[in-house]
């Protein structure tokens, strides 16, 4: 009976080569899944590194870096001009330049300069007795400086989350399927 059982087991059991093939398949499946996970991980981290670098590049354009007076490489002067100037100016540098130009403009229209030009043109300060007054309709006189708009109450913006953040996974899959089918339909029908 035992012999019958053994023969039966042997008849219905897998051939050794088949069992080995299954184990190999299982092993390869693990390797493939691992490789897939590794691929996704590397892909994501590479993208993260790329975007991080892009952000850092953009940040460099905000603040002006220090510039060297001169640089010597391998005993040979490679450049005489200051090194490190970006092709586009940083925001900080532009702000400083704008302020500097505003100051220079203020010097050109300063009271001292205007008085000197008036004296050159032989102009004299006016006297109340020599002043004639005219009524000009709509003229409201010299306006004080308004350098910026006044403060106002800002309404809190309504929620502007994209729809994709509110959809469930099923809804998103359905949407993708519908969009894909529309694409195919457009290709089919000219």
């Amino acid at each position, binding site marked *: 009976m035992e012999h019958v059982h053994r023969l039966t087991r042997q008849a219905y059991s897998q051939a050794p080569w088949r069992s080995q093939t299954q184990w190999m398949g299982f092993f390869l499946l693990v390797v493939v899944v691992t490789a897939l996970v590794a691929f996704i991980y590397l892909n994501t*981290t590479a993208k*993260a*590194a*790329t*975007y*991080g*670098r892009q*952000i*850092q590049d953009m*940040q460099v354009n*905000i*603040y*002006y*870096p*220090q*510039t*060297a*007076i*001169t*640089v*010597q490489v391998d*005993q040979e*002067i490679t450049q*005489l001009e*200051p090194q490190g100037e970006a092709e586009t100016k940083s925001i*900080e*540098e532009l*702000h*400083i*330049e704008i*302020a*500097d130009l*505003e*100051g*220079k403009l*203020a*010097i050109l*229209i*300063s*009271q*001292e300069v205007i*008085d000197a030009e008036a004296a050159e043109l032989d102009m004299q*300060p*006016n*006297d*109340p*007795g020599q*002043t004639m*007054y005219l009524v000009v309709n709509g003229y409201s*006189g*010299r*306006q*004080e*400086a*308004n*350098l*910026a*708009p*006044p*403060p106002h109450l800002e309404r809190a913006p309504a929620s502007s989350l994209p729809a994709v953040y509110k959809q469930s996974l099923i809804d998103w899959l359905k949407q993708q399927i519908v969009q894909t089918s529309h694409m195919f339909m457009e290709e089919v029908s000219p």
Partner: protein
Amino acid sequence: MKGEYAWRYNLMASGFILAAFLIIGRLISIQNSEDGKLLSEIGKSYLTQLHTYYPARGQIYDRYGHLLAANRQMYEISLNLYQVQNAETVAFGLSKILSNNPSYQNPGFYNEIYNFANQNLEDAKEFEKTLPFPISQAELDQLIDWARRYASMPVAKKSKDQPSLAGILYRPRPVRYYPEKMLAANILGYVKTDGSGVFGVEQKYNDFLAGEPQIWYVPIDPYQAQDLPDVHGGSDLVLTLDREIQARVEKMLDEALQQNGSESGTIVVMDPKTGEILAMASTPRIDPNEYFDFEDIINGETPFNRAVSQTYEPGSVFKVLTMAAALDAGVVTPDTTYLDTGVIEIGGVYVYNWSNTVWGEQTMTGCMRHSINACLTWVAKQLGPTRFYQYLQRFNIGRLTGIDMAGEDPGILRLPGGVWYESDLGTNSFGQGLTVTPVQMLMAVSALANKGEMVMPHVMRSSVTDGRQYNTLRSVIDTPIQAETAETITEMLAISLEDEASNALVEGYRVAGKTGTAQLVVAGGYHPSLTNASFLGWGPVDDPKFLVYVWFEKPVSSPWGSEVAAPVFSEVFKQLVVLTGLPPDSTRLQLAGR
């Protein structure tokens, strides 16, 4: 066969496994050793980069948008020890090029640079040094020019002998600059090289203007990239000053000082309805761009701005407050009479009129016209000390006005209950025995010119922060007298000026005001001939637009306010009506009636 040589394979496998374990073990021991930890720490220091951002200081404008305080581009110089190749050249170059820079006159500057640049990298504790003061574009251009010349020299045999400015780094930095130079310097103050404001508006609003330097560590690791902090720049200020009026007033002050030989002078123009200071001229003045000359110009105890910091006995201009208080309290009317005998006794002390003149019977208007000390003493006695000092306190005498400028002095007012004598009631009534500043007098008298409402003087009209302009609101401090009293005293003073054909009158415009001639306080009493001569006036009477205070210290040509200060008031007022386009009273009333 297989079993016979299996031991060889097992031995090799054991050997490889043992080697692997040894390697792994060594890796772990290195990682956990002291050197390994040190290496890890050094590595971390390269993970981030220190960055300092200096927000530009807010700019200051006059009321019409003319720039009074700006920022110009200068350069911050740093030395990087890793890049220095010739310490001697670097030290020599910097000390030579900056030899005319007043911030770098320190005789040890060369040694300081050389000692830093000549350090060994192994022994150095710091590898970057920033010079304390920025340099100008011209100085930077010189440095770059020197670098070019060194670069074109023949290469030396030893690299360390090759002249080079390598290691010097520069970065632009905004630095305060005043395009109008000395104009309104007493009001603006100045900014030191470390960025802190001194005196005036620059000190009062320093935190507001400066913004805050931001220091942060920027990660180099791209995985650590993060949002940079939002740096807010300093706020801009728009002052109440009118640049043209300020320039004209300063010029008239300087000319008057030359004519009358005074030691110093102050002229302040204020809008009595709003408290806005349109002009404030004081002597001496510095050029804030050359603030290092400060001690040569403003030395000893000379205040930076006399209008807010110099206290003095105001003299007869103070009588307007005494009379206003008495009228408001109802103890006198404009027609109340007083028989003047030239002297009055109070608290055992005899008070005399100026020049010992006897005026006989006078109305209150007459008392103001002739500035009779004895009459005003009598008026104060009618009020009594309690009411008199209550009114003075409501006029804010002896207290800070709260003007938004640094260095204000509250003056001195002695009150009953403290160190006070009955005779003080008499002397205080005509402006002696107490001290005030010009802005205090302006603030108090604004109540007379503004229907009883006393406004706070201020110089900031609005501020611009984060792209929004915030305007300063008019601030009424108190209503010490009624509107009717203000009109009454104004009319009395206008009539007084007209009756004596005062030098303060302005053709075409009705003005009110009072002269003041106060003897100068010296040790033990008063100087027999030296005075503070002043005039305080406002107009047009029916709708005051300007409140003007003129004050000269120790005039030489004449000691009297009526001869020295009153004419200047008139000239100032004439310029004000022209510069602001204010037509004569008749024209204005005619236009208003249309």
